[in-house]
């Protein structure tokens, strides 16, 4: 998937006479994402120069990404004083300082003779009067939106010191039709809701899609054979494959961090469910739990050494952690309520979960030993958090009372900046992809 050729635009490429540009990068503008209450950074994103509407389109996508992150406050174009005529030249910093644009993005998009797009951008620190970063990308025209997301990621990364998450996708369950006969089909879209594509035809219920960390592949559960079972699906080719050959229902699948295993629940004949891992190459299956209870929703730690899961072995559903071999099964949730859908953060330090308490459903996080529980969002019905690959944002699905169906929402780890993800139909079970390649 090498769709993009990327190179850094050095300061040497800038028109001479910009003394500040030759100084070592000494950013005055930066965002501390660890701070609880973040004041969004005022940023001006100018229309990329182009002979057609493409420049403004790219600028719009970048602006929307930055705004929705909650960390940036893009300034209205109407307030701009300087009209950027040459994105290779230094802007008039005073014109941007006076409208309090602490950061400025300029750029250009052109078509190469071979038909490819060439998009270049520069990020400027207006108060320091210097370029912070500059890069150019070559891509197929079909990937215009991705180019914009990659540029937004580069801006985000330069200003926050964290990896971005805009060039990512969401796989989810698209829900249509009346609630008692609802069609549930797999779909995939960009993280901002654009470019929806269906991955299953809706003739049978498909649920709980999860991305492979390493391939263009998802694992999910489907009723297509009559018996609900776990499958693999190649996103590009549409090729499907049953995972294992088990007598009963298999469900709640997730990949291991190396993409070589699928961990899931297997229904026992007595009606209880235990956790198993299946090696996709050797096809060997390893039992990890063996309790007379419901053990489900397993999720690996990012180093693959541990697994967090839900179990009702203590009476009601709670969160447990064990070694990846099933050793040392230890309960970690002790709050007042029912806990389920634990998901280990990509940074390894937190576990996101759904909690039912006081007649509400809550999305929260706790440390991996169960301490430091924090509720990020409460509501009538919401569940199923998934982490952005940088571990800063969670997406989940919520059904407001009387709304008729679920919708996707995201929220920052700080509990702020809740955003609805636009989808044509009802939507549930989001799973965030890794950063695309």
């Amino acid at each position, binding site marked *: 998937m090498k769709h993009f050729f990327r190179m850094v635009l050095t300061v040497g490429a800038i028109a001479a006479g910009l003394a500040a540009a030759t100084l070592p990068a000494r950013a005055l503008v930066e965002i501390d994402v660890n701070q609880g209450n973040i004041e969004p950074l005022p940023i001006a994103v100018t229309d990329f120069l182009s002979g057609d509407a493409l420049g403004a389109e790219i600028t719009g996508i970048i602006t929307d990404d930055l705004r929705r992150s909650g960390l940036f406050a893009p300034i209205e174009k109407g307030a701009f004083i300087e009209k950027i005529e040459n994105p290779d030249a230094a802007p008039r910093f005073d014109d941007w300082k006076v409208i309090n644009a602490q950061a400025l993005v300029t750029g250009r998009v052109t078509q190469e003779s071979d038909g490819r797009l060439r998009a270049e951008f520069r990020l400027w620190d207006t108060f320091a009067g210097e370029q912070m970063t500059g890069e150019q990308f070559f891509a197929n025209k079909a990937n215009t939106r991705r180019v914009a997301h990659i540029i937004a990621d580069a801006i985000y990364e330069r200003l926050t010191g964290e990896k971005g998450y805009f060039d990512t996708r969401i796989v989810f369950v698209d829900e249509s039709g*009346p*609630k*008692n*006969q*609802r069609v*549930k089909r797999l779909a995939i879209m960009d993280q901002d809701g654009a470019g929806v594509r269906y991955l299953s035809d809706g003739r049978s*219920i498909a*649920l*709980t899609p999860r991305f492979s960390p390493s391939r263009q592949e998802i694992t999910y*559960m489907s009723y297509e054979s*009559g*018996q*609900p079972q776990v499958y693999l699906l190649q996103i590009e080719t549409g090729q499907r494959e049953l995972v294992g050959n088990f007598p*009963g*229902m298999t*469900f*709640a699948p997730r990949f291991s961090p190396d993409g070589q295993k699928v961990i899931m*629940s297997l*229904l026992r*004949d*007595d*009606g*209880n*469910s235990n956790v198993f891992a299946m090696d996709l190459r050797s096809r060997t299956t390893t039992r990890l739990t063996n309790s007379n209870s*419901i053990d*489900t*929703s397993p999720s690996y730690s990012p180093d693959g050494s541990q697994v967090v899961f*839900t179990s*009702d072995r203590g009476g*009601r*559903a709670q969160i447990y952690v064990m070694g990846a071999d099933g050793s040392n099964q230890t309960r970690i949730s002790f709050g007042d309520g*029912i806990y*389920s*859908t634990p998901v280990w953060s990509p940074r390894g330090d937190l576990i996101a979960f*759904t909690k*039912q308490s006081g007649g509400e459903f809550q999305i929260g996080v706790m440390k991996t030993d169960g301490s430091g529980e924090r509720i990020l969002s409460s509501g*009538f*019905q919401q*569940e*199923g958090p998934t982490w952005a690959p940088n571990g800063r944002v969670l997406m989940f699905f919520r*059904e407001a*009372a*009387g709304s008729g169906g679920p919708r996707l929402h995201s929220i920052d780890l700080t509990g702020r900046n809740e955003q609805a993800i636009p989808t044509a139909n009802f939507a*549930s*079970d989001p799973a965030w992809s890794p950063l695309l390649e």
Partner: protein
Amino acid sequence: MRGIASLTRNPIVVALVMALAVAGCASKKNTPNSAADLGLGGGAASPGSAQDFTVNVGDRIFFDTDSSVIRADAQGILGRQAQWLNQYRQYAIVIEGHADERGTREYNLALGARRAAATRDFLIARGVASSRLRTISYGKERPVAVCDDISCWSQNRRAVTTLGGAGA
């Protein structure tokens, strides 16, 4: 419940009982086994038919929240189901386990499976051959009652005994 149980042997009364039950959330609810679907307008169910089973025996039982224990009222229904199934042995049987929406998706798939298994085991204990029985869980994916309160949730926590064609 005993009163209703005995009444349910009369299809016309059953139709009335179902109509009353539906009135609770009339506009929001769908009952696939409603009188119209069952063709009750056309007359009584013939003995041994699927309609006979659904109408005169009762095809579903209900559970308490987050529980797969067969309740006392459900034991009566399952006892009659076993008796009927043992009389009409031509049917293969699929038991669907369902959960209400007040749980998370994966847990509720497991909970529905546990309810289906408990129902199956009860029927086996009453003499139904295990070779005729299969279970499937729909978790909370197939509610019959659609509203946002307990009147619907209690109807969705269910196990439904469905009749297939020829025996297994």
